[in-house]
């Protein structure tokens, strides 16, 4: 996928109460900065159901019109599928709200901690599958 990486305007939130995934294939703190978190809105450009970990790519446009493509890691696609999620649950073109932990060296290569489609009060790829009881959505 062609990246459109521009100047990064990340919204860095608080230092506590973070939702930080343990990445099975490698250590979380090795790659990501758990002291930071971003909360952004963008358009999905690609959902990569590939091993060892699936990834969601999202274009985020800042106030200056600069587009940054976020490369966001989840866990194993097999683990996500076994919870009941499928390839049609999130597609390119979907507008989403998401939260992520930025990468240590390349901020927009981060870890996805929460994602939902704009206008839908349903968090995607959570444990329990599409029928899981939701604890609210990403704002």
């Amino acid at each position, binding site marked *: 996928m062609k990246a459109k990486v521009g100047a990064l305007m990340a919204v860095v939130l608080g230092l506590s109460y973070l939702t930080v995934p343990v990445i099975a294939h490698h250590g979380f703190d090795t790659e990501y900065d758990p002291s930071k978190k971003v909360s952004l809105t963008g358009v999905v450009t690609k959902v990569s159901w590939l*091993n060892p970990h699936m990834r969601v790519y999202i274009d985020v446009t800042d106030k200056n019109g600069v587009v940054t493509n976020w490369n966001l890691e989840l866990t194993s696609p097999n683990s996500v599928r076994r919870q009941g999620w499928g390839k049609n649950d999130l597609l390119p073109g979907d507008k989403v709200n998401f939260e992520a932990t930025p990468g240590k*060296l390349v901020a927009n290569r981060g870890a996805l901690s929460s994602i939902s489609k704009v206008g839908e009060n349903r968090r995607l790829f959570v*444990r329990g599958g599409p029928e899981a009881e939701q604890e609210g959505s990403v704002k």
Partner: protein
Amino acid sequence: MRTLLVIQATIAGLALPLFLHSQGVVSSVPVGGTPTVSAKDAARPAPRLPDGKPDLSGPWDGCWKTAPGQGCFGGGTNNDMEADIGMKPGELDTVLQPWARELRHSRKEKDEPYVGCLPMGVPRINPYPTRIVESYTDKGMSHIFILHETGDAGAHRQVFMDGRKHPDDNDLFPSWFGHSIGWWDGDTLVVDTVGYNDKFWLDGKGTPHTEQMHTIERYTRPNFGTLRLDFTLDDPGAFTRPLEVTFTFKLMRPGLEMMEFICLEDNEYGGASGLTPADESGNKEKAGPKR
């Protein structure tokens, strides 16, 4: 005499989220874990194969226990062998040879072979399922294959059940999963393995071992939903004494299967990606995204 270090995994864990951090378990999380059978189903009697041998097939979830900052475990070691086998902080150091202790503390997680999609070895496990295939010829059970979903990063383990011995030294080449022979001790499958290489780490912390490592695995299925593994690790090259540990697997929910897992297809941390993990050297040139 061997000192026992026993984890008795007796309680079906609550569905703790896999998404953890050293600050503690969080409540709203993305997906993780593998669904397992209900406690009611798990308590049913263990099934048997047509020849009367215990059916050990699974597939099994070896990562049903979680702890803050540790990742999941249960069926083997994972991120931190010390915690995964029920040791207290600092206890593992007391059973490692000085050189092994020093190496363990000097290793960086980003350097572990598994991050580059090389095998995890034994008794390493991670969130992916395990299946045990009991294979027959006209002469009876000839092989058992222990499959793990990490695919090329896990490969398959081949256990010879035909009564053969380990090869002599001239034919024993060190390998990631060693040479395994097995037999039945009543309803217990015993797997004896030698010939490991020293390349894999016993956990994400870098706990080392040597080519002298000898493992004995004793598998039983006490009920429908449980696979118990009594595991002996004897490596006089790296440890001061053998370790004996009990691991536990849980049966996955009906309808769920192992899936294809080709680690290198999109590993952004292995050599195929052209990327290296972020590290304290600040080598941003190598760490940039290629897309």
